[in-house]
């Protein structure tokens, strides 16, 4: 028999519209409109999971987003296996496949439950204390075992095949929560003419009207009113209604993050449809109508399947038409749980007893329960439960002492009161105020333009809620400039009240008790654990939280935080507000990475920058490497060469004949104006005033603290015009650095800065034959050594297009860099390449560029420097204008630590075995036989095989390195110690004869 617990006369679902689904391979039937939880309960299934630490059987606790226990995996196909889905949120669809988690081999028989027997050893702080040492055991033994036995679902092991969408929206009034409060506020704001967005996490609006049987609004049953209001709102042009949409984050300046679930409820989602949509909404006013979350009672063994929240049982009955059990009792300390007993009793369910901690409960609900023949045990507590996979018996005792009594049941509903959902308010940085009488935190001082209404504001009466929400909606609309005179007004009434209740442990779980009375179900934290944390010295709730991990599971303690706080407060003998409240952080409920990332993944993760010559490199078989966002030709393998062979050939060919290199990615800044030279003097360590027009200089840029920030060759094109080059990665920050000084420190200087990085394609031709190769293409420029020596620049034409021709060298060979407008880059390259072929030239990539410059001891910013290297450390003292009275960094250079002895200085390293190539980043020591940890005196910054030198070469930063020339040092590596000798940084052509041709 299927759906044995479905009551046809109850609920709002159509019993004719059935859907089949499976749970752990077993087939079940539910109804359209069910959640997975309601469909399981309709079939009498409470047991849905095993707990995190003790593997205790757990059932469905709630009917909403707060669910800590009933998490399952939903499997659609090989790639779509979503873990930790709350059954209370997952809507049923035909063919849904759910599997339980955290159990082996099966849900009803679980080996891991042995840790339940070991519970006394698994107490608070257990992980911190037990698994500390030895450290190796943590990696090899403890962590893998703990990860397998504890924990939640299994992460999918395939890439997410779904796609996710992203939208920005603006509105006058954003309403979070579509219950009575939210709907009333949205309606009032919309009638005033404001643009409104209302979002609710459920598939239908209505909130608690879903279960509040006695609610009546504007002369209709509450749920009906909600559906009609939603329809009316949807029909308006100035309102957007978002369902299945959770407001998960409240950020600065009234920006909220919402996630809309679009396909998780569908049996066969269209592959084109996004799975979720992230909304980033900027609202002039925010109305928070997020309701309240019911708390369970904390008593011994309160976690057995069949023990659930009272409001959840009412939801399953009144909305889904499901009786959560046959023999039900209620355990409470407040009124609203009585309504659950009454509704169930009226539906024909056997309600044995209401156990009420209060000695003298009174009021209409209490009377009604009694008149329906439900036994009310006032001043009683539930002191224990029995039942392995489902609760079957509870013991109750008078609080003041007296004989124990036992009740045979299959379901126990509990409620200790309602916790206002102040998560978003708190995220908005609002200050919470403690309501002593009702033991709850309420919105106090607002920091952003928001207002809270209804249960999240502590308003527990429906009539008051509606009146307050109508006012708030209207005011919010008016404040944003809405002018329509229409005012909405209607009456509401309900049969119950949500105030009162208790927080903390109930009798039977009080101090001294050894009982497992759970506070946080998902992380298996008991009242005893929290007391132990206090006993071990935790004073702040933030420490208690981290020590016990209470509230740190995926439910973020929605049902448990107040209990944990109350128990800690009792132990500390301090009032709750003094113990503090842990910080609420986004997201309110878990959000998929997919939704946050949206389209920004794969090729759209970040733009790829390519030079105009990229297609040529591709066609000529280049291997590419990413350099920042650039994709650069790394090397050009030929005839099956590996990287080593290709780079060796390119290095050799460039020094023997010539090499052609795409240097387009270099940053370029045009510094122009009557004060350009003065500005350059301030920005670089070098002197510029006397640099002749047509000459170049290698410039070093510092930060004010004296450390190297960037470098590059600068050419002076005219008295008032400099062509500045920067490192490939440094272009934006160098321009920002220059603009900063120009705009804010030296605004009197007449200088203009323009980024020209992408205007010029740069073709470097390096090697003894470089001049011969470019000669046929150069017009109007005399490129003889006499007319155009090393470090000079000329403007003219190359291949008939305007060009800036630099004579410079990053290789130590005679070299030119042809700058032509980017659109001509490819055709000029092709012409140069064709001519180069006649001279045996090769194309080379970034790897060869690196090797050739290292052979000459030329540094690369970010490789030889790391933000703590001075010009002197790098051997660049010569680049500092000694007569200059000011430049950025001039004072920083004099700081005591920067002039002290013992700084690491750039030197060369030669391995004793010429074939051994050091590893970049490897540490260098003076004595390899010293005990570990050794004193490290430096590290390798660059290291290559040098085909031209016939041995490996390396650059390193070594303590007092320049005083160690010829000294033997050591590089300890996992497979042995490598001996090296300290040398000059220049390995090839030390006198620089080749550069000058």
């Amino acid at each position, binding site marked *: 028999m299927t759906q044995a617990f479905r009551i046809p006369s109850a609920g709002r679902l159509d019993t004719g519209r059935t859907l089949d689904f499976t749970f752990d391979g077993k087939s079940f039937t539910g109804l359209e409109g069910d959640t997975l939880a309601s469909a399981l309960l309709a079939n009498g299934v409470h047991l849905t999971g095993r707990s995190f630490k003790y593997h205790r059987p757990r059932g469905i606790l709630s009917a909403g987003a707060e669910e800590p226990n009933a998490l399952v995996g939903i499997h659609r196909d090989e790639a779509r296996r979503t873990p930790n889905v709350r059954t209370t949120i997952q809507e049923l669809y035909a063919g849904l496949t759910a599997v339980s988690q955290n159990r082996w081999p099966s849900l009803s028989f679980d080996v891991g439950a042995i840790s339940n027997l070991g519970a006394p050893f698994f107490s608070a702080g257990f992980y911190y204390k037990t698994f500390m040492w030895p450290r190796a055991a943590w990696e090899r033994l403890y962590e893998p075992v703990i990860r397998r036995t504890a924990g939640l679902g299994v992460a999918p092991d395939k890439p997410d095949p779904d796609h996710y969408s992203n939208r920005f929206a603006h509105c006058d009034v954003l309403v979070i929560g579509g219950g009575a409060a939210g709907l009333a506020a949205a309606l009032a704001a919309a009638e005033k003419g404001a643009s409104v967005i209302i979002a609710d996490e459920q598939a239908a609006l209505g909130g608690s009207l879903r279960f509040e049987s006695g609610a009546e609004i504007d002369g209709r049953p509450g749920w009906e009113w909600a559906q009609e209001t939603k329809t009316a709102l949807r029909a308006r042009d100035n309102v957007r209604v978002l369902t299945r949409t959770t407001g998960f984050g409240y*950020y*600065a*300046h009234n*920006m909220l993050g919402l996630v809309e679930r679009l396909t998780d409820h569908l049996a066969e989602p269209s592959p084109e449809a996004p799975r979720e949509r992230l909304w*980033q909404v*900027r609202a002039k006013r925010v109305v928070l109508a997020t309701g309240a979350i019911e708390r369970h009672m904390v008593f011994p063994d309160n976690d057995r399947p069949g023990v659930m929240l009272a409001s959840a049982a009412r939801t399953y009955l009144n909305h889904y038409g499901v009786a959560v059990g046959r023999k039900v009792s209620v355990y409470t300390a407040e009124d609203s749980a009585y309504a659950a007993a009454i509704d169930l009793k009226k539906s024909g369910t056997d309600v044995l007893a209401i156990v009420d901690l209060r000695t003298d409960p009174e009021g209409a609900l209490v009377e009604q329960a009694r008149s329906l023949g439900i036994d009310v045990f006032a001043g009683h507590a539930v002191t224990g439960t029995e039942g392995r996979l489902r609760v079957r018996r509870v013991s109750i005792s008078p609080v003041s002492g007296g004989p124990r009594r036992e009740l045979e049941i299959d379901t126990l509903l509990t409620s200790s009161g309602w916790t206002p959902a102040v998560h978003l308010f708190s995220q908005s*940085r609002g200050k919470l105020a403690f309501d002593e009488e009702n033991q709850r935190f309420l919105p106090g001082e607002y*920091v*952003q333009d928001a207002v809270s209404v209804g249960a999240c504001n502590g308003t527990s009466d429906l009539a008051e809620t509606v009146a307050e929400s109508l006012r708030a909606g209207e005011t919010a609309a008016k404040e944003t400039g809405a002018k329509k005179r229409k005012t909405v007004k209607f009456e509401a009434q309900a049969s119950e009240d949500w105030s009162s209740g208790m927080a903390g442990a109930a009798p039977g779980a009080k101090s001294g008790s050894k009982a497992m009375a759970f506070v946080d179900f998902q992380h298996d934290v008991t009242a005893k654990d929290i007391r132990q944390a206090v006993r071990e010295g935790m004073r702040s709730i933030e420490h208690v939280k981290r020590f016990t991990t209470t509230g740190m599971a995926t439910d973020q303690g929605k049902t448990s935080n107040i209990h944990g706080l109350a128990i800690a407060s009792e132990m500390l003998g301090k009032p709750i507000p003094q113990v503090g409240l842990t910080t609420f952080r986004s997201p309110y409920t878990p959000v998929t990475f997919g939704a946050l990332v949206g389209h920004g993944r794969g090729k759209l993760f970040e733009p790829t920058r390519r030079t105009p010559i990229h297609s040529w490199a591709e066609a000529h078989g280049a291997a590419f490497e990413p350099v920042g966002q650039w994709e650069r030709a790394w090397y050009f393998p030929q005839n099956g060469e590996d990287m080593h062979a290709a780079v060796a050939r390119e290095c050799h060919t460039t020094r023997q004949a010539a090499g052609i290199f795409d240097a387009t990615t270099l940053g370029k800044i045009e510094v122009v104006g009557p004060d350009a030279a003065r500005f350059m003097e301030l920005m670089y360590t070098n002197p510029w005033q006397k640099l002749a027009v047509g000459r170049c200089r290698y410039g070093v840029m510092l930060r*004010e*603290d004296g450390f190297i920030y960037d470098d590059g060759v600068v050419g002076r094109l005219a008295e008032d015009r400099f062509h500045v080059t920067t490192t490939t990665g440094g272009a934006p920050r160098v321009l*920002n650095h220059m*603009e*900063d000084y120009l*705009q*804010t*420190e030296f*605004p009197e200087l007449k200088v203009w800065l323009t980024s020209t990085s992408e205007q010029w394609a740069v073709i470097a031709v390096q090697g003894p034959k470089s001049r011969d190769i470019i000669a046929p293409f150069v017009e109007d420029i005399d490129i003889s050594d006499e007319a155009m020596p090393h470090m000079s620049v000329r403007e003219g034409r190359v291949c008939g297009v305007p060009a800036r021709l630099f004579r410079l060298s990053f290789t130590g060979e005679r070299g030119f860099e042809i700058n032509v407008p980017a659109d001509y880059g490819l055709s000029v390259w092709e012409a140069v390449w064709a001519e180069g072929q006649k001279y045996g030239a090769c194309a080379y990539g970034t790897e060869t560029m690196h090797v050739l410059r290292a052979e000459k001891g030329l540094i690369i910013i970010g490789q030889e420097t790391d933000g703590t290297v001075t010009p002197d450390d790098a051997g660049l003292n010569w680049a500092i204008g000694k007569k200059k*009275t*000011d430049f950025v960094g*001039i*004072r*920083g250079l*004099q*700081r*005591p630590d920067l002039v002290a002895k013992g700084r690491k200085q750039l030197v060369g390293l030669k391995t004793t075995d010429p074939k051994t190539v050091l590893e970049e980043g490897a540490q260098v020591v003076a004595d390899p036989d010293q005990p570990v940890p050794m004193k490290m005196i430096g590290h390798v910054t660059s290291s290559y095989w040098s085909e031209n030198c016939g041995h490996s070469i390396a650059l390193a930063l070594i303590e007092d390195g320049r005083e160690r020339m010829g000294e033997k040092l050591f590089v300890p590596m996992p497979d042995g110690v490598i001996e090296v000798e300290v040398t000059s940084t220049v390995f090839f052509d030390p006198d620089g004869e080749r550069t000058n041709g």
Partner: protein
Amino acid sequence: MLLIHCPYCEEERPEPEFRHAGEAHIARAENITELSDEEFERHFFIRSNPKGIAFERWRHMHGCARFFNAARDTLSDKFLVTYKIGTPKPDLSGEIRRK
């Protein structure tokens, strides 16, 4: 994501167009080479980092590219005012008391 009013563009634009640029109203010392080590430390490294109203620099990086100053309440992230470089530091003592 903040909304920032650029005093040059004269409109509110979203934060991704801007880049934060540190504390405002710290002029580079005219006599920087004459500062003692202690003076240089205070001048270059020490920043106020207040809880409450902070004066800071922003650059409208992906807009007009200008640097400007702002007074922002670090508790609420609300901007009290943004103003052009060279404008004197506004007197917000009234605002501070009100907070």
